[in-house]
């Protein structure tokens, strides 16, 4: 519970730290309402809408309402999908307001000792240290390969965790060994005509749990004519920290990443995770208050591109024949890739250029699947409700393959496939993996011919 003193302090912090001009920029027209998943899912509850949440933030700042658990819950229940931003004619930067407000509330949150320890362990002890993530991934690989995971499932070990986490455990990809990760080269030469020098933003989870997807990404870039470097000393992007009110930690990580990518000349910095890229592209905003970093952040941001965007730019899909066995494919947008990076046409162009693929656009493909970073862990009920509605729409497309462009979305869609009883009939894949599959299928097919 918040004490009176907490409440006063929170209000003071809102007055000091919230961008009041940005709060005023919301003119309350309500154009955001139909785009907000939590507004829709709660049967049109204003306090779970962007307009309502901004009004609550402004209400605290103006002293019209006192901060309380209810208001904190309204902000917690936000997916942070930012679907409200592209539809806002006034251009309100909702994501920034949300992060600032959450950061203040987080500071004053009374958390139980275990939660505090876990947060500290995860946010400060794990993610800022790529070697520790690698070690953890190695452990996971051991758990999976040793047969322990089967034993664990049999004796109901996972039942001790929330339903969403237990479901997660089943759908985690096969983890690479620590050795595999550490022995991978840092430079990959282009194939064919050289078109660009690029650096891969490898990402914390992408470069461990989703190691194969990173390798697929590298291969696609090589085929597209890029020299690919994976700069050393890069870290997790800091998005999880930013979205959870740990802004200071994410600033530190941003600086280290900017530095890491200054080591060498690169035309582009490539990501394959919508969630990371959306956070990376706002490094300039994150570090706006630090003059010595502002320009460097701008430099970094201006070179950022998603894998599908650069492939389309470099005409990859016309230069390589892509083919798959006949199947229906649909695409689930990564909210952040779409709403913040504004990359949504390119993945569709690439998928539609694959021979054998019948592309079926899903109704509401642009709305959140419920993954939303760690949302499915902290707000499991709402996440599952959203996922169930999403799976109903996936089923309507009759797709055998659901494609995504972000690890969180990928895991969520895999969980959705399991949960809706579609295992064996449907699969979820990252677009980079599917494109490599299409390259290989095409090559084999041509050999046979």
């Amino acid at each position, binding site marked *: 519970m918040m004490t009176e003193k907490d409440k006063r302090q929170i209000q003071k912090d809102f007055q000091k730290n919230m961008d009041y001009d940005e709060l005023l920029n919301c003119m309350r027209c*309500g154009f955001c309402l*139909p785009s907000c998943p939590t507004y829709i899912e709660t049967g049109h509850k*204003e306090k779970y809408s962007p307009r309502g949440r901004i009004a609550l933030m402004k209400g605290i700042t103006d002293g019209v309402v006192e901060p309380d658990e209810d208001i904190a819950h309204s902000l917690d229940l936000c997916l942070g999908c930012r679907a409200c931003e592209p539809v806002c004619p006034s251009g309100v930067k909702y994501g920034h307001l949300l992060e600032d407000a959450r950061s203040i509330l987080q500071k004053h949150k009374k958390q139980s000792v275990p939660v505090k320890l876990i947060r500290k362990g995860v946010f400060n002890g794990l993610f800022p240290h790529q070697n520790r993530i690698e070690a953890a991934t190695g452990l996971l690989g051991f758990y999976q390969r040793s047969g322990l995971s089967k034993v664990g499932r049999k004796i109901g070990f996972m039942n001790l965790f929330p339903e969403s986490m237990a479901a997660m455990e089943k759908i985690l990809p096969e983890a690479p060994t620590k050795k595999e990760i550490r022995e991978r080269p840092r430079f990959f030469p282009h194939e064919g005509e050289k078109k660009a020098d690029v650096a891969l933003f490898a990402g914390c989870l992408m470069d461990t749990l989703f190691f194969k997807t990173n390798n697929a990404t590298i291969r696609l870039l090589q085929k597209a004519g890029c020299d690919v470097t994976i700069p050393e000393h890069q870290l997790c992007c800091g998005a999880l920290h930013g979205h959870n009110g740990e802004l200071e930690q994410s600033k530190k990580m941003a600086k280290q990443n900017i530095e890491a990518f200054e080591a060498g000349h690169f035309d582009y910095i490539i990501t394959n995770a919508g969630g990371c890229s959306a956070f990376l592209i706002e490094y300039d905003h994150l570090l706006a208050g630090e003059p010595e970093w502002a320009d460097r952040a701008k430099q970094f941001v201006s070179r950022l591109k998603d894998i599908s965007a650069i492939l389309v730019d470099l005409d990859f899909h016309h230069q390589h024949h892509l083919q798959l066995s006949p199947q229906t494919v649909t695409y689930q947008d990564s909210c952040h890739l779409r709403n913040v990076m504004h990359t949504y046409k390119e993945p569709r162009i690439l998928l539609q250029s694959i021979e054998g693929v019948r592309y079926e656009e899903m109704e509401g493909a642009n709305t959140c699947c419920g993954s939303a970073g760690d949302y499915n862990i902290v707000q499991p009920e709402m996440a599952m409700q959203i996922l169930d509605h999403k799976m109903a729409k996936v089923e309507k497309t009759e797709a055998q393959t659901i494609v995504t462009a972000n690890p969180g979305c990928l895991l969520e869609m895999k969980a959705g496939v399991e949960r809706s009883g579609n295992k064996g009939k449907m699969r979820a894949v990252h677009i980079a993996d599917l494109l490599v599959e299409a390259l290989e299928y095409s090559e084999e097919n041509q050999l046979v011919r």
Partner: protein
Amino acid sequence: MPLLRLKKKQKITEEQIAAIVGKENVDSSSSERLVYSYDATPNYQSLPDFVAAPGNAEEVAALLKLCNETGTPVYSRGSGTNLCADTCPVHGGVVLLTKRLNRILELDKENLTITVQPGVITKEISDTVEKEGLFYPPDPSSMKISTIGGNLSENSGGLRGLKYGVTRDYVMALQVALPDGELIRTGGKLTKDVAGYDLTRLFVGSEGTLGVITEATLKLIPKPESQKTILALYQDIEAAARSVSAIIADKMIPVTLEFIDQDTLKAVEDFAHIGLPTDVQAILLIVQDGPKEIVDRDIHRIAEICRSKQAVDVRLAASEQEAEQLATARRSALSALARLKPTTILEDATVPRSEIAPMVRAITEIARKYNVRISTFGHAGDGNLHPTCLTDARDHDEMQRVEKAFAEIFEKALELGGTLTGEHGIGMTKAPYLEWKLGKAGVAVMRGIKQALDPSGIMNPGKVFAEAASEREANVK
């Protein structure tokens, strides 16, 4: 009636409301009260005591009866996109949400009607009927968000008003809950019906001050088979305005005839990125629909008129998609203008369409006189302009000048034979000026109607009729 007065002294309780709508549908938490303390009108905010969401007409009626007996103000609210503070609970009390009354009850293809509950989103109605080859023309800019209940209460217009009229013209029957707890039905699926006073028309546009509409039967028409969109570009604002009058005088009635000035164009383009011309002073967005041959002929003729009135260019939208983009962009105009300054105050003074050019000129002069920035867009074809003042509510000196400027705009509109508001309603923002339009006797007639239906004054108090403490310029004069 001493008994009634005695009851009025009892304060309404959450338990009483819960007994009608169910415990889960009433809320008095501070977060809930805050998020229903406003609508889309700048500078109006006031916290209600309770927020209630009844699930059927009977619950609405019972809730009104309870409010009536306890003297509790009640404000019905759809999506809160209102632009005259009509959904702002200025006197506390109960905000009545229509969100649970969100069903389409019947699509009658024999009588060409659709019957809906008030919480249905306007666009859902359009989409539903268009799938059947039918058409519900009223299309307020907020149609993706607004509820039909809100449209009915405000008698909303839209982009197609010129040819097809406004919400009022498509209402055939209503069910209304009255403050005394009665449910009445007005009208019917009838083209002809003169049985008594036209209560349907009375409730449409009554801004929630007489009762709560709990069901409506709307008239549908066949969907036009084709449509075309053109943009006419001008380097002279008044030339654009003169074109509007000339088109109408030439007996051309397009569906849409929108005026957008340069400021607005720039703000909208900044949001929509669809390649709007931002290097001209004003454009007209013109749409015609109907059988293809007639659309072609009309569009050709209209383009000729625009050119003869100094349009520097006339462009045809290449595809249906481009036409839709243009209409969507226009609908975002007001919110897009909010990019430019912290506070955007818009009005919708309306003049006979022959007077569009003098009105546009007057707005420019008034803005200069009071040194305020006014951007203008609007449904020029039906004389309904939206001069929008870009300001900052924190700048008190400027806000006073804004008030003076708007007072003068209202005065000018009335002088030209116009009105204070074409489609947004009187609400609180224009209440002080109502007498300018209707005269004392006219306002007295309206007050009489209000008194007859809502003697305790619980229905949306503070709206339509000015209260003593109003700050607007009308009182200074």
